[in-house]
């Protein structure tokens, strides 16, 4: 019999599935109550150490994927992936995608007329080291308008996708930038209630700013942690 080490459940900072100010949630969120289940081997396991096989090699510099340097403000984003108990999550994959400096995605369905940048795709991938640290280089994405409501603009953000150690720890989030006035009027960011919304706001950092080259931002990601007590029955306790 395997020892089941369940993970913690959602904390108060997690948004609901239905958040009417983000209009697309209205017809796409369940109305029936979720069925709570204990964590079994299915929920407490996940792929590990096979990221290259699955997704491809590391792409930690989004500014050197094409012939020339992309337009915009070059930034270095650094941080750690931790669990709720403060333990590092080593050797885990974080996938990255974003708009360019003008706020335009390379995606064909993004029809906003801000310029595309042939030298910027906006997709990357990093693997955390033994201390859970990661770092990548990119261009600060621009804000962009969207059709959610009159004069709606998304704040500058970078999409981040993490699997962590288990099916239960899977997280997709967005990283925002400090002092962005658009955050407090953004329905997507505000789906996470204050003060927890601020967990998604990065911090400018002069220490990781590289002289004459790029600004540094810090951003830690916190995944669910294991419950403190292992059980053999997988039931909540």
């Amino acid at each position: 019999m395997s020892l089941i080490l369940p993970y913690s459940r959602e904390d108060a900072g997690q948004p609901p599935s239905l958040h009417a100010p983000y209009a697309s949630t209205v017809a796409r969120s369940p109305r029936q109550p979720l069925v709570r289940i204990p964590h079994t081997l299915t929920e407490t396991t996940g792929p590990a150490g096979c990221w290259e096989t699955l997704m491809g090699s590391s792409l930690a510099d989004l500014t050197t994927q094409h012939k020339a340097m992309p337009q915009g403000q070059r930034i270095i984003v650094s941080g750690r992936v931790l669990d709720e108990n403060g333990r590092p999550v080593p050797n885990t994959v974080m996938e990255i995608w974003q708009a360019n400096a003008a706020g335009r995605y390379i995606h064909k369905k993004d029809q906003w007329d801000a310029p595309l940048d042939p030298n910027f795709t906006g997709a990357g991938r990093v693997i955390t080291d033994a201390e859970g640290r990661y770092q990548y280089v990119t261009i600060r994405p621009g804000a962009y308008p969207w059709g959610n409501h009159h004069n709606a603009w998304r704040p500058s953000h970078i999409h981040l996708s993490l699997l962590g150690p288990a099916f239960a720890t899977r997280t997709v989030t967005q990283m925002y930038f400090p002092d962005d006035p658009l955050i407090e009027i953004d329905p997507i960011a505000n789906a996470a209630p204050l003060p927890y919304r601020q967990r998604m706001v990065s911090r400018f950092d002069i220490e990781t700013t590289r002289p004459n080259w790029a600004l540094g931002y810090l951003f830690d990601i916190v995944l669910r942690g294991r419950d403190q007590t292992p059980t053999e029955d997988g039931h909540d306790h």
Partner: protein
Amino acid sequence: MTTEQAHPAPRQDNQDPALFGQTPSQTVGPFFHYGLPWKGGADLVGQSDMGARPELFPEEHYVLNLAPPKDAVAGQVITLEGVVYDADGKPVPDAMIEIWQANAAGRYFSPDDDRTEIPLDEGFIGFGRASTSEEGLYRFRTVRPGSVPGPGNSSQAPHIAVGVFGRGLIKRLVTRVYFEGAPENAADPILALVPAERRDTLLAREVDGAWRFDIVLQGAAETVFFDI
């Protein structure tokens, strides 16, 4: 030296220890196709490029994986497919489905499954990712999983864990695929937690040689989603 320097204004950002806790979930939005679903991500057993939507962005901007060569895997190869529907019965063309499952022998490709007496299958990781098409259809090629342990001394019926992402989904929705007609379903400890009249939303059915599993995000036939 002013007292203000001794008492800096409280910070509210990601690095503030007072805010330490789970990073909130956010939607993948509508434009994830060049960043997440790689070619072959939906083919867990072969070399096809299933799963990606490369027509949605210029070819020179494809930086994800190419379907890696895979060794032959043990077990019965199956197709798992279905349409994702919204509350109005409209297909969802910008969703992404992820699956996680055990191999045919019932072992997970994970260091946290320590049952070394059950063989691992080096060619089978058991994690897959598929974008939905413009018609809302997702499709995987995988193997039918074996049974895995459940709570206590129970055994779980063969099942595939499913995560649903997409525009309008702030949080991943979690469900499971079970196989209609599997004798183990009757004793499955997780299905037993689902109201009897809703269990059929978790059953894939064999249609034209494929296992069909539609996902209804909301409405009369709403799929059962789990709080895990």
